[in-house]
């Protein structure tokens, strides 16, 4: 019995190869993902543990500005018993100035400068450590971003508005401890003492150490001694605690990476399940007569079923083995290609291998189970018929469940509303969308007949090629559905993310375009920093500037006359610039800040405050003891808040002194935009920390992160699409094999080879386009719900990503043509004589 089956398998090596390929691809992607996440996690944490630390001392600051340790503390600590070495570490503002004359974004500039020492903090990758003034060493990634190597002159922006030029003598990688950020620039100790300080400290200020690192054989003794010596103003942490904290961080970083990657692997796997199940079903369908013969000569149903399942296990094992090997290879290759500076760890855990086998074998068995049951139900009589078919499963249950899922999903979204979108409601709406998405997968076979069948009638006089192609596509709706569903899975997610991205970018563009005049010049803090007061003064000093909006935000509590209050934000700016250099989106009232405050619409609604009402603004004032200052003010209008103008808009002059506020952008207008820009560029030429841009550049900068994330998402979902494309090839190739006889007759009756090829190609294009249309449609709707959940826009308020949709549809057409290449050739070669021979 088994021997007969295995012989049969061997006789159809082509078909077996296709099933195997489907399993291999699915398994390979999962295993590759696991290997990449293991390796990435290991890379994040590898080689960065310092063994030379017994303890680290930091000051326990009363305020954010007073956190440095006086220099003399080092000598006190060095003298403690058990301490073999005490090293003060300096930190200060430092940023490499790139070729554009502006600072880069790789490092956190506030702490990016440090002093060189020979501890394990630094690991040189080239050159040597800095020894005297005029020499610096750079962190590898920062050096790469600035395009600098050993021997180059480098300009560094420093605290106190100074800059320094030095020669790069070394490039290093850094071993951070605890929560420390990697520095970008290291000076020798003397130069560091002279140059490094917080950004706003004057050059003459006396500075101390950010922390003191202690070495010593007995960690506990060192910690105890330091704690006793220093008292309550300091925090002493042991080296092993810090290492543990760091390992913990690395693990959770690795987990985040793994979870994100596995989510994509799950999507690819789902597409893979469809392809494997579909291929297996076809493999069984094509051997109907074989099973009937076995039954006719006395095989019991259970025997047939067992034989098919055994076959699945064998195929699953072989496919998994190949898939695991390929996945490990792909994963290691991906790690190699990743743009990681420094050492990369390659990890292949037993879990990756086990998971690969589990996925491959279980998915294959699950996919084969239905086929096996149906194979066993083949009547022995079928052996005597030439057109025998495997009994089909009814689609009724599947369709009903699918429609229920769609209905329930839609209802779950519908019961929530944008006005009142609490966290549980967001989750409910998203779950509804996912449920409906699965519902579409379930109803896909019915949809095939419902959508494609009328198409044959819609086309008035379809050429025989088109007609036969369409008919072939709908003749087994389940098969076509499975094939196009695999395509739909990846494609719908691509389109969903694209819709969210498009909506975000449309909203951002609309916000910026309405708030910032087209001819405004935008001054922005580089490297995610903030603008200080001198930047504003410098801009105002430029005579070409007719109005300057320098919005600065902080926290405020708005108290209404009815007693209700809201903890929110304020943004202060020059009233003269409102309407000229920046334009709030007014929803009611006016915008004259000289006469009062503009409340954010949301806050106005929440507090029940209208234009003309009185409110009190309760500002927090910084100082040794927390205090608030209340300012009564009239509401002159309401506006729709935006990222540029957050919260309540007030006159600069209205904000009491001592209230913390910060801003990162300014908007200037003048009589002639290009003259103005030239003047501002000159004025800020010596300010590497301020970018001079126009509105378009501002938009590009704001949208870039979305584009990067979307690009990555597309690449990862691409794997699911690749697997699905393979599924199309598989389906077509097997369909062609199944129709050998029919194709032969078609040829005998006078269809040329070109016509046969064309028929197969059209069928392929129909299936692919169907998957494409379904994927894009479902994806845009899913994206609509996603942007609703994220932004609380109306569900149908999404922006449709026409470009992505168009490209996807074209791509699917192309996929159809390419997937048909080989099957079409094969079909055209169909042997007429063999086909029409009766046996």
């Amino acid at each position, binding site marked *: 019995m088994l021997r007969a089956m295995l012989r049969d398998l061997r006789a159809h090596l082509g078909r077996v190869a296709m099933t195997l390929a489907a399993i291999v691809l699915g398994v390979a992607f999962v295993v590759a993902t696991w290997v990449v996440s293991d390796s990435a996690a290991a890379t994040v944490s590898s080689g960065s543990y310092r063994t030379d630390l017994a303890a680290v001392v930091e000051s326990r600051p009363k305020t954010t500005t007073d956190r440095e340790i006086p220099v003399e503390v080092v000598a006190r600590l060095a003298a403690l018993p058990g301490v073999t070495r005490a090293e003060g570490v300096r930190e200060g503002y430092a940023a490499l100035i790139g070729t554009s004359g502006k600072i880069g974004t790789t490092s956190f500039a506030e702490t990016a400068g440090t002093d060189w020492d020979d501890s394990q903090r630094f690991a040189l990758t080239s050159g040597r450590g800095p020894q005297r003034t005029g020499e610096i060493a750079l962190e590898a990634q920062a050096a790469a971003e600035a395009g600098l190597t050993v021997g180059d002159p480098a300009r560094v922006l420093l605290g106190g508005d100074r800059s320094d030029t030095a020669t790069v003598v070394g490039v290093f990688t850094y071993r951070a401890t605890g929560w420390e950020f990697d520095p970008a620039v290291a000076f020798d100790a003397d130069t560091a003492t002279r140059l490094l300080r917080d950004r706003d400290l004057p050059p003459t200020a006396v500075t101390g150490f950010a922390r003191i690192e202690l070495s010593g054989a007995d960690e506990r003794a060192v910690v105890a001694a330091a704690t006793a010596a220093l008292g309550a103003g300091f925090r002493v942490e042991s080296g092993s605690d810090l290492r543990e904290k760091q390992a913990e961080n690395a693990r959770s970083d690795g987990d985040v990476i793994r979870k994100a990657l596995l989510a994509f692997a799950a999507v690819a796997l789902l597409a893979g399940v469809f392809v494997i199940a579909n291929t297996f079903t076809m493999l069984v369908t094509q051997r109907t007569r074989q099973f009937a013969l076995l039954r006719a000569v006395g095989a019991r149903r259970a025997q047939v079923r067992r034989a098919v399942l055994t076959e699945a296990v064998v195929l699953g094992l072989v496919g998994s083995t190949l898939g695991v090997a390929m996945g490990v290879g792909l994963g290691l290759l991906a790690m190699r290609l990743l743009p990681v500076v420094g050492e990369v760890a390659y990890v292949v855990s037993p879990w990756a291998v086990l998971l690969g086998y589990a996925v491959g074998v279980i998915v294959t068995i699950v996919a084969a189970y239905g086929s096996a049951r149906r194979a066993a139900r083949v009547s022995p009589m079928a052996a005597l018929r030439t057109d025998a078919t495997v009994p089909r499963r009814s689609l009724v249950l599947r369709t009903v469940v699918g429609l229920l899922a769609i209905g329930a999903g839609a209802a779950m979204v519908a019961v929530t509303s944008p006005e009142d979108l609490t966290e549980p409601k967001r989750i409910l709406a998203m779950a509804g969308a996912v449920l409906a998405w699965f519902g579409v997968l379930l109803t896909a076979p019915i949809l095939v007949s419902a959508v494609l069948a009328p198409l044959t009638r819609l086309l008035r006089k379809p050429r025989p090629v088109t007609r036969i192609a369409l008919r072939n596509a709908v003749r087994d709706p389940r098969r076509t559905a499975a094939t196009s569903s695999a395509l739909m899975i990846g494609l719908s997610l691509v389109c969903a993310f694209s819709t969210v991205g498009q909506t975000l970018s449309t909203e951002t563009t609309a916000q910026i375009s309405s708030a910032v005049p087209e001819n405004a010049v935008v001054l922005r803090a580089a490297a995610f920093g903030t603008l200080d007061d001198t930047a504003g003064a410098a801009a105002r000093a430029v005579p070409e500037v007719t109005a300057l909006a320098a919005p600065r935000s902080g926290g405020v509590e708005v108290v209404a006359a009815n007693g209700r209050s809201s903890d929110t934000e304020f943004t202060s700016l020059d009233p003269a610039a409102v309407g000229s250099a920046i334009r709030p989106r007014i929803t009611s009232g006016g915008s004259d800040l000289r006469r009062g405050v503009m409340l954010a619409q949301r806050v106005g609604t929440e507090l029940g405050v209208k234009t003309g009402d009185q409110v009190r603004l309760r500002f927090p004032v910084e100082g040794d003891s927390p205090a608030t200052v209340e300012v009564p003010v009239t509401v002159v209008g309401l506006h729709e808040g935006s990222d540029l103008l957050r919260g309540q808009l007030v006159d600069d002059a209205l904000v009491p002194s001592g209230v913390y506020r910060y801003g990162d952008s300014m908007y200037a207008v003048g009589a002639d935009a290009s003259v103005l820009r030239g003047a501002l560029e000159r004025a800020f030429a010596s300010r590497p920390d301020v970018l001079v841009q126009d509105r378009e550049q501002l938009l590009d900068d704001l949208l870039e992160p979305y584009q990067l994330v979307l690009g990555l998402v597309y690449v990862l979902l691409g794997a699911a699409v690749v697997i699905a494309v393979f599924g199309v090839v598989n389906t077509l190739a097997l369909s062609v094999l199944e129709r050998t006889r029919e194709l032969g*007759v078609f040829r*005998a009756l*006078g*269809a040329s080879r070109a016509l046969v090829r064309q028929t197969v190609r059209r069928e392929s294009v129909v299936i692919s386009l169907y998957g494409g249309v379904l994927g894009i449609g479902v994806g845009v709707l899913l994206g609509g719900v996603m942007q609703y959940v994220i932004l609380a826009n109306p569900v149908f308020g999404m922006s449709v990503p026409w470009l992505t949709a168009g490209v996807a549809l074209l791509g699917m057409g192309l996929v159809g043509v390419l997937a048909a290449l080989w099957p079409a050739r094969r079909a055209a070669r169909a042997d*007429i*004589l063999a086909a029409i021979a*009766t046996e």
Partner: protein
Amino acid sequence: MTNFDAAVSAEDLTKRYGSGDALVTALDAVTVAFGRGELTAIMGPSGSGKSTLMHCLAGLDTPTAGRVWLDGSRHGDAGRVELSGLRDDALTALRRDRMGFVFQAFNLLPTLTAWENITLPLDLAGRRPDQSFADTVIDAVGLRNRLHHRPAQLSGGQQQRVACARALISRPDVVFADEPTGALDSRAGAEVLGFLRRSVDELAQTVVMVTHDPVAASYADRVLFLADGKIVDELREPSADRVLDRIRSLESAARGTRTVGVGA
């Protein structure tokens, strides 16, 4: 051979398979002509080469040697075409426009309706069916109220009648029928044969039919007997009994070397 008006003729048609010890001669220098407006039956035991002969005549198989002509009066003098040496596309067009086929296993395209199956050869050529002729054919096969059914919804006899209509719709120079009744019960078989007969009588159609059934052969104007790749006998105005007698005498001549099979 007589010098009558032939729709299809062949000269020294030879077909060999394999080589060396395994060499099989399926057709051995057969020269034959099929009269226009006649129903000719080809009979012979299994392996006698009757199917190979038909496949070579229809341009489905390439002979090892010899020539085949198709001579269509409907196409004037230019209608005389020699098949050997034609490329695949030319042969395909010839089959589509000037030949019709009826197979034992019906071989309808399962996704097309009866009507679409019938008009497929015209569709492939990009021609519209001549409605009055189509009506004639459809009424003759009695499928008027089955036109929009799929093959799976038709009985075997109905399917074979669709196949006959499909073979006739393009008014081909010749219809080749390969065991047209092989898969049918006797009543359905009689219907199909009656229809082929009427197409000859009423539409002046030329039909070449391979069969092993003496009753089917009795519908023919002329029966050719093949054995070992050669035409060994011929009978005009056959009846089932005369065909059977002739088979028996051929059988006794060949006794001891082979048995006459009735299978295709």
